[in-house]
Every structure is written in structure tokens, then in C-alpha cells.
């Protein structure tokens, strides 16, 4: 690695990924394969999971390793041979660094899959070529669609067990395309592979000459990650008010936060909600010096030219691009609580840095994940179910729809008794 290479390593892009699928479709094996083939795993970690305890201190080939054991990090997982919770894995190619959330396949752990998928820009949906599209594949795909994951990659795995048969692959591709078309997902890439042998993961292999697309790794390296979040309206949820009150800075008042979308410049006219007061940006303060301009997702401190009332939970926006505000909301909700969601129940709703009391006024419908049909007289939403919920809030919320803005359109629901996170909401 030379000086030039250090610079490149520092400047590569970050892509957040999620892998989902049914039980035993080979997710852990695929991730183990990616880690081995991109040298994302170290020798001592590989030696710890080699199949036969040998004396040699080096691994000659991936076939010596129990790939799944590399990622199932909890003793309970190794004991049961299943993945319980999300594991985060890191690997890099000369083009990109990847953060991969490896999600469990079991239905009872769907909530952990939602956890892993919420921050992802791309998803790999694994399908066992022998089984085709399973109910859990549909459930996961539907959730990925709701979460607005920009790129879905369907990896038809275990092609070695169906004799690398092209017709089997095409059938699955058609089934998935049809299911996705129903809910408006268009950007779908399907590719065949054998994670165990490595075909079509990092290298093409010799077994599927009939497939002309890119390998999985090439696909991941070439996906567009530009979501142009800096081009959206400026949204700055205030985390804290910085008041050092030191001898040097007796009257300093800065608003600390993360720019979740858009761009801000010194001199911009901004409005604080809910107060509605306006001012102009005086400084964009960072430890490394003041900036003329800042953009999402930078974390900065803003000072204003007027003493206006702004505190945690408030939001700064540009004057002409205000967010919606309402005491009533409708949202798609993935229910992840042990106890069901029911009408008239109250929860805490955390939206960016703002927490408000919310009551469920109505369950508009529950979605049947197999048919995508709406069940309109549902009385509750059980764990891992998905529905459209109407809420009434104690105080108005300033928001965008999830389709417009993932950051200001999402919220979590917290059970006031257990303090657990019980729902993932996407405002419609």
C-alpha cells in the first residue's frame, strides 16, 4: 500500500447492505464466502472455524472452513445452528467499503430483520434454488419494499444442488418479478449462484455459462449509491442546544444536530418549528473550523443571527420548504412488539429527536403478506405483522412522508410500560 493507496482507501464510498431470506437458504455461508473472497476475515478467525482441526497454521481453500460458523457469533446460535440476531460484517474492495447486516431467517426473528434493513441502501434476498419463493421470502421482500430499499438483488443460491439448471433459475426470476411488480418494486436484479462453491459470488466459475450478468460482488460494486439526499429540502432536527457558558463564550448558543437532508449555507433564512420563528444562519460551526456550507449527513452546530426559541426536538428548515405538520398521522407499521398493537392504545412515538405521546385511533388495514391483500377489520397487529395505522398525537409533528424523505418520514414506537421499541413506522 502506497501513499496513493492510503488516500484511495480513505476516500472510498460506503454502501450499507442487508441480507435476508428463509431459514437454511445459505445466508451465513454466502457472507462467509464474501468475507473469505474479499479477505474480510483474518487467518486466526478462519482457523477457529475450520472443519478439521489441523496442525497447519494456514487455510489453503475456503472448502476447509465452516463458512456459516464464521458469522453465527452467539453460542446459542452455534448450538441451534440458526441465526438469532443481526450480525454486522465489514468488508471492502478497492472500490467500496460494505457494511452488511446479516439477518435471521426465522419468522420469529423478523423484527431483527427490520432492524438490519432500516439503514440499508441495497438488499440481497437469498432463495434456495430447490425451494423457490417461500412465504418468508415474500414477507421479507414486502418489508424491504415498505422500507424503500433502493436496490433489491435476488440471489438464487444452491444452484449446485439443482445441476446449475437454467430453467429452475428462470422460474424463480419470474415468480419474484411478478410478486415485486404487485407492490411497485421495479429495480430488481436476479442472479444464480453457489455460495458454498463460490460460483458467481466473487468469481464467475465454470458452471453457469448461460448467465450473462455480473457476479454478486461486481453488482455490489457498481450499484448507484447516489440517493441525492443533499438535494432534498433542508431538514435539521435539533439534538441539543450548545451553551458552553465559559469565560470565553458567555453568551454562545449553538444548535447541534445532524443534517438529515438537504444543504445549508451561511446567510440562509431558516424557520424553527414548532415556534415558527425565523432567523438567518450566522455560522456553521465544527471542531475543524467554520464552514460556508454543510450538507446531509454531516453533524454540525448552527448559530443564528437572532435570539429565537429553539430546543431539542424542534426542527430547522428553509423558510420556503417547510415540513408538513399535523396532530394526526397515517403510517405503515411493522409491529415488532411481543404484545399486539391495538386500537385506543397509547405509545411514545420517537421521530428524529422528538418524542411525543401517540394514540392508535384506527387500524386501517392489515396486509396479508402472501397475497398483499388488505384485511380491513383487523382488531390488532401481532408481532411481525404489517398494517396501516392512524394515530392521534398530543402535539403536532413536523414531518415528510417516508416516500419523500426516509429520515423525516420514519419513527419508532415505544411501549410506555416496558420501554421496549415495539413498532417501526413509515409515514404515508
Amino acid at each position: 500500500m502506497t501513499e496513493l493507496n492510503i488516500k484511495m482507501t480513505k476516500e472510498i464510498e460506503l454502501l450499507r447492505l442487508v441480507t435476508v431470506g428463509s431459514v437454511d437458504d445459505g445466508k451465513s455461508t454466502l457472507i462467509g464466502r464474501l468475507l473469505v473472497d474479499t479477505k474480510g476475515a483474518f487467518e486466526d478467525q478462519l482457523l477457529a472455524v475450520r472443519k478439521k482441526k489441523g496442525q497447519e497454521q494456514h487455510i489453503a481453500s475456503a472448502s476447509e472452513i465452516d463458512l456459516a460458523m464464521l458469522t453465527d457469533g452467539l453460542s446459542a446460535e452455534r448450538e441451534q445452528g440458526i441465526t438469532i440476531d443481526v450480525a454486522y460484517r465489514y468488508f471492502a474492495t478497492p472500490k467500496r467499503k460494505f457494511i452488511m447486516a446479516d439477518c435471521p431467517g426465522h419468522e420469529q426473528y423478523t423484527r431483527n430483520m427490520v432492524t438490519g434493513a432500516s439503514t440499508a441502501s441495497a438488499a440481497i434476498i437469498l432463495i434456495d434454488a430447490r425451494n423457490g419463493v417461500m412465504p418468508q421470502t415474500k414477507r421479507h421482500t414486502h418489508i424491504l419494499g415498505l422500507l424503500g430499499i433502493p436496490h433489491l438483488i435476488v440471489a438464487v443460491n444452491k444452484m449446485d444442488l439443482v445441476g446449475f439448471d437454467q430453467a429452475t433459475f428462470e422460474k424463480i426470476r419470474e415468480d419474484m418479478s411478478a410478486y415485486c411488480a404487485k407492490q411497485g418494486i421495479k429495480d430488481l436484479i436476479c442472479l444464480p449462484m453457489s455460495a458454498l462453491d463460490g460460483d458467481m459470488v466473487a468469481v464467475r466459475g465454470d458452471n453457469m455459462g448461460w448467465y450473462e450478468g455480473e457476479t454478486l460482488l461486481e453488482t455490489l460494486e457498481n450499484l448507484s449509491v447516489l440517493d441525492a439526499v443533499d438535494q432534498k429540502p433542508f431538514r435539521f432536527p435539533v439534538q441539543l442546544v450548545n451553551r458552553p457558558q465559559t469565560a470565553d463564550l458567555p453568551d454562545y448558543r449553538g444548535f447541534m444536530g445532524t443534517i438529515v437532508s438537504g444543504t445549508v449555507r451561511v446567510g440562509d433564512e431558516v424557520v424553527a418549528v414548532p415556534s415558527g420563528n425565523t432567523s438567518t444562519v450566522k455560522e456553521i460551526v465544527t471542531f475543524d473550523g467554520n464552514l460556508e456550507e454543510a450538507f446531509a449527513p454531516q453533524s454540525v452546530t448552527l448559530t443564528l443571527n437572532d435570539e429565537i426559541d429553539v430546543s431539542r426536538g424542534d426542527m430547522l428548515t428553509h423558510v420556503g420548504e417547510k415540513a408538513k405538520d399535523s396532530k394526526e398521522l397515517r403510517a405503515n407499521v411493522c409491529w415488532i412488539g411481543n404484545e399486539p398493537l391495538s386500537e385506543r392504545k397509547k405509545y411514545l412515538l420517537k421521530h428524529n429527536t422528538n418524542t411525543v405521546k401517540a394514540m392508535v385511533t384506527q387500524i386501517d388495514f392489515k396486509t396479508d403478506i402472501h397475497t398483499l391483500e388488505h384485511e380491513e377489520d383487523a382488531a390488532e397487529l401481532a408481532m411481525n405483522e404489517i398494517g396501516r395505522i392512524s394515530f392521534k398525537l398530543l402535539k403536532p409533528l413536523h414531518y415528510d412522508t417516508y416516500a419523500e424523505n426516509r429520515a423525516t418520514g420514519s419513527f419508532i414506537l415505544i411501549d410506555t410500560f416496558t420501554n421496549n421499541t415495539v413498532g417501526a413506522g413509515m409515514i404515508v
Partner: protein
Amino acid sequence: MSGKVSEHKLTQLKALEAESIHIIREVVAEFRNPVMLYSVGKDSSVLLHLARKAFYPAPLPFPLLHVDTGFKFKEMYEFRDNYCKEVGADLIVRRNEEAIARGMNPKDHGVARCCGALKTQGLLEALEEGEYDAAFGGARRDEERSRAKERVFSMRDEFGQWDPKNQRPELWNIYNGRIHEGESVRVFPISNWTEMDVWLYIREEKIPIVPLYFAKERLMVERKEMLIPYYEEMKDQLLEGEEPKLVMSRFRTLGCSPCTGAVRSDASNMDEIVIEAAAARRSERETRIIDHGSNSMEDKKKEGYF
């Protein structure tokens, strides 16, 4: 619109930095009494640097807590005291005095027991004594397979214990900081950083680190494939056939001196360290004796260790 998007692209290091600052601020906003664990190592140095950035121009709004086993390298103590003074951090040092008074050490009592008493127990007592409801740590998910499963906000029950099968779902960048009396949260702002990111960032930001990370000729004893630094006080503890000799070496990770090995290396500046890290075939924790064994990290974590 054309050209605008690429102008606004954050490099992955800057994206990680922004995410970490967001997390640190969120904790200060939502918790009553946070503390930042400071172990004097490279990850701690990055964590402290991020915290300073998060609250600039104000001073750090929480103290640093060093759980000292008494077995750290003397270069670490020197560095700790000087650096904390330089950046104006409020440093609290806590030790499990009872265990230290009873002569707890890894040689006579075993590595696991010693670590359990001096680190885990020491930490839990210090957190309880300070009534901290949130403790920042510099653990990273890429370090070890059970750490790969950690949430950013990681719940601990009133006994300070972690239940890996019952973790709170964590969605988007919305962190749930609500806890019951007696419970606490371990917060890992650099969860998504890799060892490489840490080195690149230290290099980029010129963050001071303990000189032990840089290679030079040091007196070492070779024991079971490990390089153990030799100090005068170890004279009587040498095993048969062992003889201290000068070895060009450095540390990839810093723990307690009896249990942390060095590696042979010529990397004596940040560029060389980055180059060496990129070529490494073994993980950094290989030189930590306590990590060896099938579930040792997970078991320690359940007990309350980071």
C-alpha cells in the same frame, strides 16, 4: 443540478464520523448521567476525539472513566495523565481495590478470573458507584464475532448484564434511550468502524496515541509464539530457557501488560502502520490472551464486560 451531487459526497470516514457524533450527542440528550469509558488504547483515543468534536466549542459534558487493573503498561499511565490534562478532560480512575489488595494476578489466579475481578467487576462497581445510566465504549463490531451482534445502544439489566437473545430492535438512526431505574445502556459510537478505519482516522486527524503502537527495539521475551514485553520486575517470573532480547516490535492492541503480546514490526510512523494493517493476515485481538477459547468474549460480555 449536474455535478452538484458528487461535490457533496462524504468519504466513508467522514460519514462514519458524522454517525458517531450523532450517537454521542443523542446520549447526552437522553440520559441523566453518562460517562465515557477510557482505556487509553487507540479506539479510546478515537472515541475521545469524536466526543470533543461533538460538543465543540463547549467542553466535554461528561467525565472519562478509566477502570485500572494496575497492570497497564507504564507508557499508558503516562500518556493517560498527560493527554487528559491537555484536552481538559475530567478523568476518574477506579480500581477493584479489594481484589488488588488480595494480590489478584493472571499468573496465580488465571487470566479469566483476573480479568473478571479487575476489569468486569471493577467496571460494574465503578458504574454503580457513579450511578451512571449510560457508558460509552469504544468496542467495534469487526473485532470479534459476538461483538458483531451488538446494538449501538446496548441494554444492561440492573446487574449490568447483557442478554444477547433479547436485544432491543434498532431502527434507522432513531435510538431508544428509555430505561427503568437501575438499568443502564452501553453505547458504542464506533460500532461500524473497522480497525482500518480507526488507523486511517488517527492518521488523518493526527490523533495522539500511546507510543507503544509504534515500532522500536524493545526488550521482549518469547513465550508460546507471543512476544511479551520484559520489565525488570519480571526477572523471577522467567520460565526455563527464556531470555529477554531486543526485538523490533510494536503493539496492535493494548491491554494489561502480562496478557498483551507485541508483534514483530518495522512500522514506526502512521503511514507504515496503515500499510501494515492493510496487509495483516491475523486479527488484532490475536495478541490478547483472554480472547482465546470458544466463547470467551461472549461469556465475559454477558457478565458485564464490554
